């Protein structure tokens, strides 16, 4: 079985090399360390999950590809100041958010306009960022790498730095089986690392899979409230229907963030943001696209009493009497918070594979 994995890898690497003279290499694998040592990683879809949206077949995570992706993810060299790595804003113990900051801080302490999103279950998402500005995981890193308020670099310059580095050229060789530090390989390696970040071991997951866990009375009550009042948007196993909606947050200075409209130019997308997954929500505070709400209790108070009207506000938040918000009793709020905490996946937060050190 182990061999089979190697052969598949070799198959991928040789799949379309333009000089087809290396047919022999396919057979005599054992003396080509780059391929033999590079086993496929096991990316398997948890039984309670939907199918992956990421095309694993086109970029199957391998041991060395993942290792390269991880090094890139934690390497400040990718930023203009040599300090701000992806991992600087995406910290594992907070489900890869930057929780000490409301909005993100990039090179030279420059402040971004949005709250760093958690990174988990990215292989199952259709689009990326709060407004869907990236249609593919493989191209998403272009945004932080080049944004002035984030890593402030150019892709060509990043590639030059990696080429000049002592270790990267070898790591690229090992990961992809031939010479070459290219943009495509860098994006593929980052994706391999991020695709493996599957968070599927919370109490909620175990409950969904029928494993031996029981919700407390409060968690169970919270689950039922959640199903009736929240799950129309924070839907299903992934805790999001992946749509863009306006949940009644006021547009505020200084960011004046118009949301999804920036991507589509459509007035009906004004102030809409992607419905976030609520997985690991206990530890990804502060909340909302600009981190304006500090605690889960405050989020629920916002849902009952804090909404601001605008044309694109989701209809679900309009009450019959013309006021805005959801009806949630104080007792239900306590139950909801208890349920939301069952979405915390400590195995994921402590998974050594993703750890910087």
């Amino acid at each position, binding site marked *: 079985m182990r061999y089979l994995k190697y052969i598949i890898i070799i198959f991928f690497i040789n*799949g379309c090399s333009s000089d087809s003279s290396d047919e022999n290499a396919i057979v005599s694998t054992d003396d080509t360390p780059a391929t033999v040592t590079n086993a496929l990683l096991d990316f398997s879809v948890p039984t309670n999950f939907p199918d992956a949206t990421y*095309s694993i077949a086109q970029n199957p995570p391998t041991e060395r590809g993942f290792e390269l992706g991880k090094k890139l993810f934690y390497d400040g060299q990718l930023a203009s100041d040599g300090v701000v790595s992806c991992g600087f804003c995406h910290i594992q113990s907070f489900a890869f958010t930057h929780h000490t900051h409301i909005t993100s801080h990039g090179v030279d302490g420059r402040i971004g306009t949005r709250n760093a999103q958690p990174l988990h279950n990215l292989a199952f998402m259709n689009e990326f960022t709060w407004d869907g500005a990236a249609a593919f995981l493989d191209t998403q890193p272009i945004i932080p790498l080049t944004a002035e308020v984030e890593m402030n670099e150019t892709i060509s310059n990043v*590639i030059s730095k990696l080429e000049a580095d002592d270790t990267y050229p070898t790591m690229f060789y090992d990961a992809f089986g031939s010479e070459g530090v290219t943009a495509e390989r860098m994006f593929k390696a980052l994706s391999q690392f991020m695709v493996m970040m599957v968070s599927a071991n919370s109490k909620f997951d175990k409950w969904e899979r029928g494993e031996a866990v029981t919700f407390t009375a409060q968690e169970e009550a919270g689950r039922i409230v959640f199903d009736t009042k929240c799950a129309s948007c924070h839907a299903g196993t992934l805790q999001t229907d992946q749509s863009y909606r306006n949940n009644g947050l006021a547009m505020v200075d200084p960011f004046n963030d118009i949301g999804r409209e920036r991507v*589509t130019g459509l007035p009906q997308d004004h102030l809409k943001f992607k419905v976030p997954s609520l997985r690991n929500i206990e530890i990804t505070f502060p909340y909302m696209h600009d981190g304006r709400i500090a605690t889960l209790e405050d989020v629920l108070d916002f849902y009952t009493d804090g909404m601001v009207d605008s044309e694109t506000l989701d209809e679900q938040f309009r009450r019959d009497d013309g006021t805005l918000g959801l009806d949630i009793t104080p007792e239900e709020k306590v139950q909801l918070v208890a349920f939301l905490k069952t979405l915390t996946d400590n195995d994921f937060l402590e998974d050594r594979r993703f750890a910087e050190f």
Partner: protein
Amino acid sequence: MKKLIVLCLLVSLAIACNNDESTNTPTPGSLNLVFQNTIDASPLVMNDLVYTNTSNENYGINELKYIISNITLIRLDDTEYIYPVEDSYFLIDEEGNKTASLVNIPADTYKAIKFGFGVDPTKYPIESGTLNFVPLAEEADMLWSWSAGYKFIKFEGNYSVNSGSEIPFLYHVGSHGATLDNYKEIIIPVSNMVIQSNGENDNITERNIQFDIAKIFDSIHTLSLEAKNEIMVDPENAPKIAENISTAFSISE
């Protein structure tokens, strides 16, 4: 185990390079597509406000860049030679490179050239091989800064109405996430274009493709600069520009 290796070997040989027909053809040739940006069939004069659109606005052009992709040649029998897609992205810059140099093309006679204007947003980036085009596109400022998408065309200059003062204009048309597809496929017939094998003497076939810039403003749709001088992520006007552009290419033989 042996059987398995043999099986895998066969499968991989069968699948290997099926999109790269050139490796099977012993003597391939070359083709240069030279993009000529024209107005009234003459090469562009940059900067000065020497042109007039049908809305009676005088305009001059400071910058013109666009992306050509997915080049396919159609044989006399309607079969297609698809140029390796990862090598088929070209940045055409009025003030820089204007040639798409294609190599290793099967020697044959072709009756049409098909290409994409922009980058096909529906294709997965690994599949369409665009990831290695990112650095070049970025250097040319053909990526939106806030999104991970391409500007298909960057067209900027100045205009004036009724000999008034000069006002800058800017058209950047590209993909809007996955919601709007401004990518256009363009087919231009050519009369019996022969690609000869390179052999000893470097036989490069060359064709000039004209891009009639005036059609950006006036073709299927008419766009007035006074009505709107900055078009970027504009779901109403950007598709009009893209449709106009899809009518603007022709070949002179």
